[in-house]
Structures are given as C-alpha cells and as structure tokens.
C-alpha cells in the first residue's frame, strides 16, 4: 500500500492550482483555473479506465488507488491518512471533477469581479470534495467534510445575490450544526465499540459494527439503544446535507442567492455528500437499525419527494423551482437506500450521479438564460425560444431529463430505485409506498412543463432592459457536454452501474443481517 497515490495527486493539483489562481490576475484566472481543473478530470478518467477495485470499500472489498500513512494519535485512537476508491466513490469522484471543470467554464460570463479569488475558492472546494469521496479515515474525512463549507460560504457570501449574507450564514450554520450532531452520534458508536477498534479507520469501524456483539455499552446505554441514538443523530446530521424534509430550508435560499456555477456544484456535488454519507455510515454500519426503522425513514423520503415537488410547483423563480425539485429527487435516493435490495442501493447511488449531472445541467441552462436576461422570474420572460434556440433546446432536453424521460440518466436512476423499492421486504407495504413516491414524476412534469410554457414559448417578451442574443460558445459547451453525459448514461447506465452494483452488493450480505 502506497503512502501517496493518484488520489493525493489529484488533490494536490487542485490545491496548488487554487493558490496559483489566487495569485493570478483577474483577467486570466478563469482560463488558468479551467486548465488546472482539466488535470483532475484527466486523472479521474484515467482512474476510471484502469479501475481494478471490487467489492465495497468499507466491507473488506479491494480498494483501488489505496494509500495509507500513519498520522497522529488521539488518545488511544490512531489517526491515519487513508484514502482509496471503490465502485461507489469512483463515480462520485468523476462527477466532482467533471462538474467542477464545467462549472468553471460556465463562470466565465457571470463572474465579473474578484475572479482570481472566485476560481481559487472553487478549486479549493474541488480538492476538499475529492477528499470527502475518497477518505477512509473518519478524522480525515471529517476534516474534508467540514472544509467544503468554507469555500462554499465565501462563494455564496461574496458573489451571491441580494440576500447572500443571510443565505451564506444560514447555509454555514445549518450544515455545521448538522455536522456536530452527526459527530456526536458517530463518536458514541466509536466509544461504544470500546477496545474493538483502536483507530478511526472507517472500514475497521464498519466491520466491527457489523459483527454481532462487538458494540458494547456506552455511558450506560445498552447497545441496541446506542445504535438507535447514533443512527438518529447521524441521520439527522446527514439529512441536512441531502436535504430531507423538514431540514431542507437552507437549500432554496442558498441556491437562489448563489451564483449559477456555485449552484451547479451545490446541487450537483454537495448534496451528494449527504446521501453518500448516509450510504456509507447509516446504511452500511447500522443496517439493523435502518431495517428496524425502515417505516420511519421511508416516510421521510416519500414526504420529501411529494412535498419538494409541491413546493416547486408554487415557485416563480426558475432557480427556486430547480432547488425544490432537488429535494424531491433526493427523496428518491432515501427511498432507494432504505429498500435494502440490490437495485435499491444501486439505483440510489446511480441516482446521485444522474441527479448531479441533470440538476447541474438545468442550473447551468437557467444561468445562461439569466446571463442574457438578468432575470429568473417566470413572469418576466416569455418566448425565449425565439432568441436563443439552441439554449432553449438544451433547456427542454434537460427538463425532460429531469422528468425522467427514458434514455436519459434520470430515468435509469429513478426506475432502478422504484424497481428496488417495489420489491423491498424491508419497507412496510412496499408496493404502495413506492407507488405514492412515484407520483413525484407527475408533479415534476407539471411544474417543469408549466415553467417552460411560460418562459420559453409564446410571444417573445422580456421585462428587463437587456438585449438578448445567442449565448457565447463557452456558455453552451458545458451544456452540450453535460447533456451528452446524461444521454450516454441513460442509454448505457452500465458505464458506471456495473461498478456501483459490485460495490453495493456486499451491503446485503453478512454482518448482523441474515442474507435473504
């Protein structure tokens, strides 16, 4: 096992690049940052090509690009630098690098002040996001997990809209408190394990927790209750990030105020941190508890789906619409996770990728329209198809992708989740619950079609005084790339699905669970 490997190299490139960009002149910062970010893209694509991992990284599978080095000792716990990739983290790593580059390109137009700082912060965030999806030591992971907030805070707070400070502080405090809650839950588990573990190594902890009888009492709490308490705390902590009803209210504010490229990353990657962590922690380490409480968890998922969609229906701001619909889409992920079926886990993970790409695409295309019209309110725009035919074409494609049009990535993710959830033996009344959740696809069609009819079609009209012309090429290129990815993953989900399935299958075996 190497001490440092390609993962560190990617992080280092982004990190060093960030500081180079900080020092670069504003005019060229965007270009430099984009060029720098191409290195992680190329690197992660290379890793995808030569990926040789198998099984689940936390449950004793073969990790690819693993590296480990002893670091510090906290009491009797060893903290080690430990990173590696399995079939779940590699697609998310790819999503991060690709989406970052595209978001950087799409920033060229809208970001017109303090460019070097903006691009530097985005690269800084990329570095920490890579860390979140690759770290295998809790301590290291937590550092990255928290560090992501810092660039995001500034990106919203400095370059955001009129209420940016409110949104940035709300985002920061909300997610930070969530981390605290989660941290307490996880540490209770670690202490409850007592002498079974002597490090914060996630695989070691996960395997210990899945071994019956390893978890002892902690603070006078018996193991069963301890599991429940820890599960609840961690679920609440991660649910904020996902976000799950009723912990979602930071999201619309953050999205509306954030500049478009930041929204792209926020919806595309940051939300996936929540579901990724849920998968890695709650549903890998505490399966017993998850299964015992499946009814409650699935209720959160289904309510998020329907409630988020209904809220989206009531919005006037295009970005708010997409923001609320993200809540809805991420609800499906919860539904898939709690199903405890191969397609449930696989579909949920695939949906993270699919939703990352599609919501990123939709935010980006809203941003392109905003760049030209300087408004996002549905009532202010009409007949954009007249002036920006190709952009509108992409908008329509993205919207249909969001509605789950077959042969686009969103359908694959949602269908697999439905397939997994329907057959679940864990969810009470699984067919009925799944059926209810699926009604989201009708509502999502309702509000997106309505918004498109109002803004894209009809007679051309604009409430703001701007000349609308075709978008510049560098605005359209990211859209086209994303759309191509969405279609490619929809036509052939196995591009990433096979490795995902391979990585989630071990979740259904062994541990405290009987294999059914």
């Amino acid at each position, binding site marked *: 096992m190497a001490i440092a490997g390609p993962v560190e190299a990617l992080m280092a490139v982004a990190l060093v690049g960030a500081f180079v960009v900080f020092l670069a002149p504003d005019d060229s910062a965007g270009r430099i940052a984009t060029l720098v970010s191409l290195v992680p893209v190329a690197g992660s694509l290379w890793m995808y090509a030569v990926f040789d991992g198998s099984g689940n990284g936390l449950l004793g599978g073969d990790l690819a690009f693993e590296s480990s080095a002893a670091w510090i000792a906290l009491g009797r716990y060893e903290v080690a630098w430990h990173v590696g990739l399995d079939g779940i983290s590699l697609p998310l790593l790819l999503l991060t690098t690709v989406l970052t580059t595209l978001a950087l390109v799409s920033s060229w137009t809208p970001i017109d002040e303090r460019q070097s700082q903006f691009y530097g912060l985005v690269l800084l965030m990329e570095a920490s996001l890579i860390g979140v999806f690759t770290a295998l030591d809790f301590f290291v992971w937590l550092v990255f997990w928290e560090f992501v907030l810092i660039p995001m805070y500034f990106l919203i707070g400095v370059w955001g809209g009129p209420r940016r400070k409110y949104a940035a502080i709300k985002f920061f405090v909300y997610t930070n408190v969530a981390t605290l809650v989660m941290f307490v839950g996880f540490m209770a588990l670690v202490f409850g394990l007592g002498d079974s573990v002597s490090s914060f190594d996630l695989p070691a902890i996960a395997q210990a927790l899945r071994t019956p009888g390893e978890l002892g009492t902690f603070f006078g709490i018996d193991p069963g209750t301890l599991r429940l308490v820890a599960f609840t705390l961690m679920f609440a902590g991660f649910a904020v990030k996902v976000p799950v009803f009723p912990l979602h209210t930071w999201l619309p504010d953050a999205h509306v105020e954030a500049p478009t490229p930041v929204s792209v990353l926020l919806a595309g990657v940051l939300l996936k941190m929540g579901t990724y962590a849920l998968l890695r922690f709650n549903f890998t380490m505490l399966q017993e508890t998850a299964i015992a409480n499946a009814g409650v968890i699935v209720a959160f998922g289904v309510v998020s789906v329907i409630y988020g969609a209904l809220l989206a229906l009531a919005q006037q701001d295009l970005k708010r619409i997409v923001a609320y619909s993200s809540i809805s889409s991420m609800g499906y992920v919860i539904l898939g996770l709690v199903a405890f079926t191969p397609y449930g886990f696989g579909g949920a993970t695939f949906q993270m990728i699919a939703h990352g790409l599609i919501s990123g695409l939709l935010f980006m295309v809203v941003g392109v329209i905003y760049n030209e019209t300087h408004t996002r309110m549905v009532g202010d725009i009409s007949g954009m198809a*007249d002036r920006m035919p190709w952009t509108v074409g992409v908008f329509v494609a993205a919207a249909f992708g969001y509605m789950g049009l077959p042969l686009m990535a969103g359908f694959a993710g949602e269908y*697999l989740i439905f397939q997994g959830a329907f057959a679940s033996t864990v969810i009470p009344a699984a067919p009925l619950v799944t059926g209810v959740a699926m009604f989201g696809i009708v509502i999502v069609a309702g509000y997106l*079609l309505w918004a498109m*009819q109002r803004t894209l*079609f009809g007679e*051309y009209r604009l409430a703001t005084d701007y000349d609308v012309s075709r978008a510049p090429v560098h605005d359209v290129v990211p859209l086209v790339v994303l759309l191509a990815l969405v279609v490619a993953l929809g036509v052939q989900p196995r591009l990433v699905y096979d490795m995902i399935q391979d990585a989630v299958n071990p979740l259904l075996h062994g541990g405290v669970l009987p294999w059914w």
Partner: protein
Amino acid sequence: MAGVYDFVPAVALLPFLAFVVSLFAGEYMPKRGAEAGIIATAGSLALSVWTLLTVAGITGPATSFNENLYTWVAGGEGAVTLNFGILVDPLSALMLVIVSLIAFLVHVFSLGYMNDEGETGLPRYYAGLGLFSASMLAFVFSNNLLMAFMFFELVGLCSYLLIGFWFREAAPPSAAKKAFLVTRFGDYFFLIGVVGVFATFGTGLFAPVEGAETLASFPELAEEALAGSAEEAGVNTFGYDPGTWFTILGLLVLGGVVGKSAQFPLHTWLPDAMEGPTPVSALIHAATMVAAGVYLVARMYGFYALSPTALAVIALIGGFTALFAATMGVVKQELKQVLAYSTISQYGYMMLALGAGGYTAAVFHLTTHAVFKALLFLGAGSVIIAMHHEENMWTMGGLRDRMPVTYYTFLSGSLALAGIVPFAGFWSKDEVLFEALIHGLGSEGAIGTLLLVGYAMGLVAVFFTAFYTFRMVFLTFHGEPRTDTARDPEPVRWNVKGPLTVLGIGAATVGFINMVPVAEVTGREIDYLHKWLAHGDISVTTTEHYGELLHTFAGVDPAELGPVAPGAVSLVLALAGVGAAWKLYNVPDPEEHTDKLGGAKTVLMHNYYLDEFQVWLATGVTVPLARAADKFDQGVVDGVVNGISSVSLFGGSRFRRIQSGVVTNYATLMTLSLVLLLVVFVVAGGVV
C-alpha cells in the same frame, strides 16, 4: 443467421438517423431535412415489408424472432436483468408496416403542407417526425415491457415537441403541455405496472426467448401461477391472491393505455393536440401514437386474457368512450376537432373489441383505422391548405368541384369511418361489434352482461359516427361556398395528392383482408387476418392461445351466432346516420341544426365539462395545495429554523449586556459565580 431479422433494428435506427441529420444538417438541405426523413422512412417501410413477408414465410423460413440484443442494466445477485430486445411476430410485423407506411406518407405530405407553405423551423419539424417514427417503431418491436415503456414515453416527448411546433403562439405550447401531462398521468400508473410486473415475475418479456435456456414470458408465468401455485411459478404476488394481483397489475398498465389511446377520462388532451401541424395530427394523433395504447394491450393480451375484471374494465371504457366521444363530435365546428373526437371514439371500439375477447377484430380495426384516419387527416390538411389555414367548416362548402382529388379520397375515408359497405371501416367495425355481441351472449355471469352493455353503447355510437362524419363531408364539400376563400381555394400539389390517393385506395380496400361475413356466407377462406394472427411460431401470442386463456381463466366464450345479422343491424344504423346528415346538411345553405339541442349543445361543446374539471384539478386543487405547502414551508418549517436562530440572536443580545466593559460588574459576576460554586460544593458535600 443473417437474415431480415438482423436488419429489424434498422427499422427504428434509420428514422433516428434522420432525426440527427435533420436536426444538425437540416438547415443546409434544400428541403430542410425532409429528404432525410423520406429516405429513412422509405427504408423502414421496405424493411418492414420484407419483415412481414418473412413472417408470412414467403421470403425466408424463420417466421418469428425474439431475442435480447442489449443489456441495459444487469442487477446481478437475484435482481432482474433489464434488456432491450426485439420481438417479431405476426402482430408486430403488421404494425411495423402500418407505422412505417403512414410515417412515409406523412413525410411526403409534409412537403406540401409545411415546405410549400413557407414555414420556418423545418429542421426541427423533420427531426421531430424522425424521432417520433423511430420511437414508435422501436416501441412496436419491443420484446419486453420496460423497453416498451421507454419508447412509449419517447413517443410522448415527440408528441410534445410536435404539438408545440408553432411555439410562438399561445395555444400550441399549452396544448403540448396538456398532452404530455395528461399522458404522463396515465404513464404514472403504467410505470407502477411495469415495476410491479418486473417485481412480480422477474421478467417483462412479452413472449418467451428461446436460447441456451428458455426465458419465460410474464403472461406465461402468470398463467402458471393461476393454474398452480404462485411459489412454483416463482411469482411474488405480494401477499395477494394471484388473480387479484394480476388484475391490479393489468389495470395499472391500462392507465398508460388510457392516457395514450385517449380513452375516457384521459381523452381530453387529444382534441387540444390538434393545435399541432395537420400532418402531425395524422401521424401521431390518429394513426400511430394513439394506436400505441391499444397495441400495448394487444401485445400483452395473454396477460389481460387471464383477468375477467380487467377485460370488463377495458370493454366498458372502450364502449363508453366510443359513444361519449361520438356525441361530442356531432356539434364541433372545426374540421380537425370532428376528426379528433372520431379518433377517440374509434379507439374506443378497439378497446371494446379487446375487452370482449375480439383480439383479431381489434387489430383489424387498428389497421383499417390507421389507413382511413390518416387519410381523413391528410385530406383535412389539404382542405386547410386550400382554405389558408381556416378550419371552421361553416366557412367552407362547395369544395367538391374545386378540389376533386381531395373530395373523392376524403369521401372514401368518410365512408370507411362511417362503416358503409364495402369500405374498410365497415368490415372492421362490424367485426368489433360482432365479437362484443357473441362474447357478451356466450359468457356466463357479470362479464357477459358488461360486454353486452359495451356492445349496446358501441352500436348506438355507430349512428352518431355516421352522422357526424357526413355532416362534416356535407358542410365542407357540398352546398354553396360560404366564403370567398372557399370560392377560390388555393390549389394543392402532387405531394399532397399522392399520399391522399394511396390512402384513398387503401381505405376502400384494406377491409378485404378480413371479410368475415362474406367468408361465412360463401364458405371461402378469405378471412386472412384471422389466419395471420391465429398461427405463429410463438404459440403464446396467437389467437388460438388467447382463445383458450379467455375460456379457461376469464370465462369469456363466444356464442353460436352468424355474423350476417349483426352486420346488417350496424349497417342499417350507419346508413340511418348518413341519411340524417344528408337530410339536414346536404342542402345548398345548411343551418346550424345543433342549436336546436339547446342546453345539450352547450354541454357537448364544452365536452361535458371534463376539461374544466381537469383544469380545476390542476389549478383549483393542486396549485392551492402547492401554495399552502409553500406557505407552510416558509412559515412553519423555515419559521422554526429562523425562530431558533432568532432565539439565539435574542439570547445573544441579552447576554451581551453583561459585557458592559465595566470591571466592577465583571468582578461582581465573578464573585457571585464563586459564591454559587461554593454553595454547590457545599451542597454536594465536596464530592462531584
């Protein structure tokens, strides 16, 4: 085995290629992308005909084909594998020919309707047509339910794009939205059904795939489960009785059918969809896309035949829709609106036939209807060109002499639609009603009665159909011209007349493929379609097999009754309808007799207020609900969040006052704290 079946994917891929070419290169082509579409659909047509001939055993020995070609997602570990595959049997081969033929003719017709009229955005138009043809053809040869669903949805997308083609106006985008949304509502149930079928049977195959190991189809598994125990068949019925559960699944899938085939109560989108260009109406909303729903039921008929409840529901929906839509067609003033309601009504007949066990009759009517309805729409398109895009029939009149080709072909289509012997519609509609009648009489119990109810509604609808059809013909072509445009209509070119002629001949003759009454009377075996569908390599998709299933599981049996008398009854009704129309409207200067209907006319013009009801559901229920949710979210959920933050802010502002900057106060606090601490120590006995 290199043969025609290796080329079947190309039937769909060619139009898809045309989509790509038209979209990106259409701008630089002389006909703005039409060339690509015409060539591609011609190729598809040729391949389809070749396929049909091969299935008939004329050009090759292998008369069927069913294989998985592509793995979409492989779940592994006991999860089902989701494949794309191709199923070619008599039914799909026939449907491929119909779809590609109509698509080809519509492409040609579009040259006259769109290019010659100087429309802009044509590459987009032809790209849409190409994508539509591709999706529909792929839907037709799908070999499993998931693939069928996927292309079913893509067909919906194309419908959205094409209805909303004239996006600069207000109405088309709205109609497009409505079409997609209403069908999406149906597809929601369909999707649950698809998921349910996969979860129940572990496969979505329509027919078994022969290979190293034979993969069973889900209708077969359902049959086994009903015959024996569910466990033995490896079927998970989620705790329900297999019969009940299969009925639920069947009805869920039926949701998609009702949406796409515009059956009551999800038919409201189709009349609105007439906002699209007329060739699109012909292709999508008459001949093919709407056929997708009915085709789907036919495709998985082996599953529906197991459930008497599902059959009864199908038959009742069909019969009711046939009558219901026909009554609304009577009062409409726009040419295309009348045709739209007739479409809904005719698909009702097909559903009636399917529900009544008349599988062949449904396919027969599907075939003839595709031909004559495409003809009528293209004829209407020709009239619309001539009338400079004026669609109100009251502004027409007397076009008979000025556009004879259109008139005679349109008349052929109308006679077929009205069901006048010997045009195509007569034979097929007659058989639909005949099947409904004999199965209604022959079946025991509730289903027999329900089928007879369906039959009665269908029979009444015959009169209305004939009436509104000829009201339309007389108002448009007969009498005196009522406006200047009608006196001097714009001439149409070969690219309009050509497709009309082909279809006009078709409308008169397609019925001859299955003249059951004639076969009965003469004793000659000329009911070719019956024979075509009755046999086949894949035994589980033949009518012979369906007959057994209907008998064994659904208790639907035919009574012994000759086809001649019922045929005569429906012919008399049709002639009565034509006669009534003749009397009222075949005059030089017809009046609006519908005014005499009084309040009934208002109700009919408003389509029984169903649109209002659905709009109310959307804007009167859903939107306020969404607003309420938004208020709740902003007020309560976010309010709690902001409340917590304001509590801490408020607390902070209070605690800040302690930080007065006066040392004395700090010292006091320290002192007090010390006192408190000491007291605590004392009380706790010095041990904490």
